[in-house]
């Protein structure tokens, strides 16, 4: 990975004076680091810039945490930053490093290291690593067309091209009363349904370039399913880990591979689950 990026060789005295003014509440090392980067393009100076700017916006009692807690310190929970302070930090980073950061890219940044790494990638013009994104049951219910009592994804984590979901079999699901009477077993057909739902979730949240427009959540349907194998019977109390992996998107179809685990045991596998979708008008 390169450590030096191409920059204008020297800052004009005017820009330097503006930068000094903007950074006057940061530690002196921050300005030195900015000058080093802006004058030589040496990206090794960037962590010091980011740390100096974060520190400047912290309440005094939270500053030692930044110094001592290391890279995994959480921006919101540990350092007390809120979303507006994050905006102020980003604005100052943009100004000092002469870069531009779109709002939506900031949302997944949770730790100091996330932020440093993200800005480092921005400066070098490379794609920042994908940050897994967790969705709670409320998040999921807010956008999914499926709803209780027919929603079989209780939590989900989105990875770049994979998605992991969770469903705990409670025992009071309406269909368990008859499947089977006196001996509740989670239906295999609903396992495929659960994987289908997770695939819908992944498709709706996907940022793949093949998706050219906003997908209408009311227009995603099950199209086909191939190569299904079931390995284990699941009963109330079992916790199902659902996984989908994107294979291909070509409008109006999206294909996934799916698997279900209960702990370390294989429960079910589907070679191909294909959804048909349409864009919102």
């Amino acid at each position, binding site marked *: 990975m390169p450590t030096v990026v191409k920059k204008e060789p020297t800052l004009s005295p005017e820009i330097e004076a503006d930068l000094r003014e903007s950074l006057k509440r940061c530690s002196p090392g921050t300005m030195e680091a900015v000058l080093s980067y802006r004058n030589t393009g040496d990206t090794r100076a960037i962590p010091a810039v980011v740390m100096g700017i974060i520190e400047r*916006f912290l*309440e*005094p009692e939270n500053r030692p945490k930044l110094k001592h807690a290391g890279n995994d310190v959480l921006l919101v929970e540990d350092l007390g930053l809120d979303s*507006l302070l994050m*905006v102020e930090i980003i604005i100052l980073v943009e100004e000092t490093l002469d870069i531009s950061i779109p709002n939506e890219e900031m949302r997944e940044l949770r730790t100091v290291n996330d932020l440093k790494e993200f800005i480092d990638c921005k400066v070098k013009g490379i794609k920042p690593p994908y940050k897994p994104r967790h969705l709670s049951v409320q998040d999921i219910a807010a956008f999914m067309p499926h709803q209780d009592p027919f929603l079989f994804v209780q939590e989900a984590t989105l990875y770049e091209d994979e998605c992991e979901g969770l469903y705990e079999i409670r025992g009071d699901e309406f269909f368990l009363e008859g499947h089977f009477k006196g001996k509740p077993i989670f239906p295999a057909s609903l396992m495929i349904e659960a994987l289908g739902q997770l695939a819908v979730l992944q498709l709706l949240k996907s940022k793949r370039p093949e998706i050219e427009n906003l997908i209408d959540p009311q227009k995603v349907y099950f199209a086909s399913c191939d190569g299904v194998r079931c390995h284990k019977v699941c009963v109330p109390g079992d916790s199902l880990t659902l996984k989908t992996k994107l294979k291909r998107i070509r409008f109006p179809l999206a294909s996934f591979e799916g698997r279900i685990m209960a702990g370390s045991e294989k429960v079910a596998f589907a070679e191909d689950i294909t959804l048909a979708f349409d864009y919102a008008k």
Partner: protein
Amino acid sequence: MRKVVVTGLGFITCIGNDQATVSENLRELRHGIELYPPFQKEGMPVKVAAPVKEFNTESKNPEDWNFPSQYKMRLETLRGLAPQGLYAYCALTQAVEDAGLSEEEVSNLQTGLHTASAGSPGTMYHHLKRMFKVGVMRCSPMGMVSSIAGTLNFSLVASFKIKGSSAGFVSACASSGHAMGFAYDEIVLNRQDRMLVVGAEDGDIVSILPFAGMRALSPSEDPDKASRPFDKDRDGFVVTGGSVAVILEEEGIARKRGARIYSELLGWGQASDGHHVVIPHPEGAGVEAAMHNALKAVGVSTEAVDYVNAHAPSTWHGDLAEAIALKNVFGVNNNGPAISSTKALTGHGLSFGSILEASLCIIAINEGFTPGSAHIETTDPVTKGLNILLETREKAPEIVLSNSSGFGGSNVTLVFKKYPG
């Protein structure tokens, strides 16, 4: 009916940043007007203003400000403030302490907050200028919330963790009178037990100068004479910034917690001129009706009123209209209530003028004097028959009216009564 009493006061004003200093300056009729440094240059049509002392809020970056070290606040709070937000925070901190309220007594479902501020045009201007220069996505996300009219609510509800009702009032120079009047209603209607009422204004160069464009400000270069309500040679008003906070409580609740009670807020009334966007009704019809409405609401006769703190801002039209209204309400036999305008001392606080003057009435009632109308050399003949008090009288008024009038002919009269004991 539930009674409303005043149990706390806080002051960040040109005549003092604590109650004792304000009280002394009020009694001695010492003004807070000065040759305002930013006005001392060519082409400035006004020379005087009445800025708060011990604060420096000149920078547009709140982190550069200087203010008395007794006021502590989180950076997060400070960064979201325009100057009047800082003054309001300090005044409210003082009032809460003065009333002896705990954090729980401030932050609960039965305690609300009413505020009045016209916003900070200077702060707004700074942020908008930056927006057009560097682009909207590189502007402080707090620029707008710190400078628009509602800013006091936003910041004080958050920093004092207010959970009861909250609202801001915008009726120009009657704003904080409305804030207090409707706070009274909240308590009387049993919606809240306690109300914090705060008025504040920036009072910087940008918030003052447009009034010069309206020909409303005194061009005087003499701070000792610039603001002289009811003088026949008055030539306009002087602007002051700052903040006053007043704590109102239901009487029984205040007594139960052993609060010191300054006075009773008996009630209030309001009426409008229905006349002109800025010029007062020539015979003060609205302010006359406001006084009548207030007296009717509280069931007090005109004879029982001892003192009227007039709105009289030292403008030709304003003082004239109010003098006529006062004559219509109290007669012209020199036996009416003592009348003075304390704007001679403080200048005109605009949105926070009404609560500033109400607080001065409360001090006067509580400390046993009636403040005079300072700086009058020749009383305007139009006031003939009115009892314009020229010097402080060492006697506490029992019943006090405090008048405020704003643009659009919005008039509020608050009625205070000495609290027995």
